[in-house]
């Protein structure tokens, strides 16, 4: 142990030279390289091959990545298990779809409103249910999703149980249906790109550090000065906005919206599985998790051997991950090869 006289502990904050700050920041971007390369490759691939079918399957993968990465801000960074996260996807989708189908709005402002609606719901809910910890919070999010689905089912302006349909004419404004489909893919790619950046900068920020502290020990974090109630709420809002926006895009592409697919609880759980598979609390994890889960699902659904029992096979795999690799692929690699930590964020 050093002699205590070595340094002053209560002096003023040390000055940081800009040169030092720059070099530290440059180092900080290393972890962003891999995620962005992957997203770029996923975006370019269907453009190069020009096959619509490839683009469709990559659309599903990219949607999964964006949703899982959003959820990761709450689940992975903050440690709160939102089982009913699909409620934001569904509500955002419904609000945007209503504006497009009934009020005649165009896609962009509708997406903005979908994100806003989801963020607002998360803000209001967060104030209340984020007081609950552990299993109680998880249960409450399930309750919220089921209540919302049941409500929309009765809400006539949104079409009640039959939902709403977009008039095919709408796509003409975007250069026809085929062109609109292509456009949604690139919009999705752009949103995914933004989600990854947000996820990364939250992870690297002071705000993100506060979230990690909450995840590890909420009471100790509060004693150290982390204002947990508001930090949690903003994490919740942030993790809800993108699913809201993506809901609008997804159902725009889909052409119709109904309560059951919009608020499917299993979809929430799939998001959690993707986050777990790749590694919760990391930026790269949900990306690998989304790719891995959707590729596997695609394989199982088409494989003659597993087609009928694909759900059971997926269950076995999930169980193996939960029991034996709880840190996910990225977490496992980080623990196994500490050298790679800077690259695998």
């Amino acid at each position: 142990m050093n002699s205590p006289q070595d340094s002053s502990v209560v002096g003023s904050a040390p000055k940081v030279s800009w040169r030092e700050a720059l070099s530290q920041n440059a180092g900080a971007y290393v972890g962003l390289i891999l995620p962005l390369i992957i997203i770029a490759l996923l975006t370019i691939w269907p453009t190069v091959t020009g096959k619509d079918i490839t683009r469709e399957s990559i659309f599903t993968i990219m949607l999964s990545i964006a949703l899982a990465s959003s959820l990761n801000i709450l689940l992975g960074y903050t440690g709160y298990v939102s089982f009913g996260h699909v409620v934001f996807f569904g509500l955002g989708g419904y609000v945007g779809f209503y504006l497009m189908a009934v009020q005649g709005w165009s896609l962009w402002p509708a997406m903005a409103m979908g994100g806003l609606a989801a963020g607002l719901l998360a803000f209001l809910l967060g104030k209340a249910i984020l007081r609950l910890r552990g299993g109680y919070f998880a249960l409450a999010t399930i309750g919220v999703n089921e209540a919302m689905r049941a409500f929309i089912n009765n809400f006539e302006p949104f079409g009640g149980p039959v939902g709403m349909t977009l008039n095919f004419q709408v796509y003409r404004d975007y250069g026809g249906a085929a062109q609109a489909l292509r456009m949604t893919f690139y919009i999705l790619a752009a949103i995914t790109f933004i989600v990854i950046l947000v996820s990364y900068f939250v992870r690297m920020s002071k705000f993100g550090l506060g979230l990690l502290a909450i995840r590890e020990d909420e009471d100790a974090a509060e004693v150290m000065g982390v204002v947990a109630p508001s930090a949690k709420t903003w994490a919740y809002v942030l993790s809800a906005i993108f699913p809201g926006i993506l809901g609008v895009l997804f159902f725009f592409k889909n052409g119709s919206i109904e309560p059951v697919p919009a608020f499917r609880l299993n979809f929430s759980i799939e998001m959690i599985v993707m986050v777990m598979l790749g590694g919760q609390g990391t930026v790269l994890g949900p990306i690998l998790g989304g790719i891995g889960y959707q590729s596997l699902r695609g394989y199982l659904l088409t494989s003659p051997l597993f087609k009928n029992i694909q759900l059971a096979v997926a269950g076995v795999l999930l169980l193996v991950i939960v029991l034996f690799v709880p840190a996910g692929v990225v977490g496992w690699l980080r623990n196994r090869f500490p050298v790679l930590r800077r690259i695998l964020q």
Partner: protein
Amino acid sequence: MDFLFTSILDGLMLGFVYGLAAMGLTLIWGVMNVINLSHGPIISLGMFGVYLLFTFLGMNPYIALIFVALFGLLLGIVIYFVAVNRVIDAPHLSTLLATFAVAMIITGLGTAVFTASPRNVDYSLGSVTIGNATIPVTRIVAAVLSVLITAGLYLYLHRTRSGRYIRAVANNRSAAELMGVPSVRILALSFGIGTMLAALAGGLISTLFPFTILAGGTYELKSFVIGVLGGLGNPIGALFGGLILGVLEGIIPTFMPATWVPVLEFGLFVLILLVRPQGLFGAKKS
């Protein structure tokens, strides 16, 4: 007025069965703080157990329940050791996902074997008329059996050695271990009893309504609501929670469209979680 009376009576009858369905979930939560997401598929298995024994072996549904109960107990113990024991002290997410994985496995295999088409147990004991209300006897039997099973569970938890062990582990696992309670065996047993109750509830429901392999999911969600009403971790409170839910389901449609029932149910569920997480009747743990 008569209509309201019939609705309440109907709701009460059903409420007992709902209570039984939730009891297993809340017992497992109380003993080991695990939310068992395979609860619904196990209820479905209970339904199919009675259905198969009745349809193919011609067994009386109520006799079939005995086999279903045994099967549920063994299945639960197996699930505990395969999926839960390893992560029992890990964060909540692990047990939630582990039991959800079990749910996927059961549902996946179940759908492959039985398909998702509806079945029913074609068994009737006639009906009785009380006032203007006509009630199928199967409903009365289901309600009475639910009450008897609940009483049996109460006696078991309070009068037998292993039952007392279960309560001790629920109260404070490390203290119970210090006093020599074999906690892993008790946890496995509790999980087994929890799934046994779920399977029994499924078996009884199969004598009342048509069902599919996915039907358990509805009752799992109802069980969450009931569990929170009666106090998660309080198995006997679940019976009262079930009655409240049953009566609500009976009354609400008399003054608003039945489709609003789940809105109110889940709204109430979230509200109670926020205001009184220990449930309306309190529980040992909050």
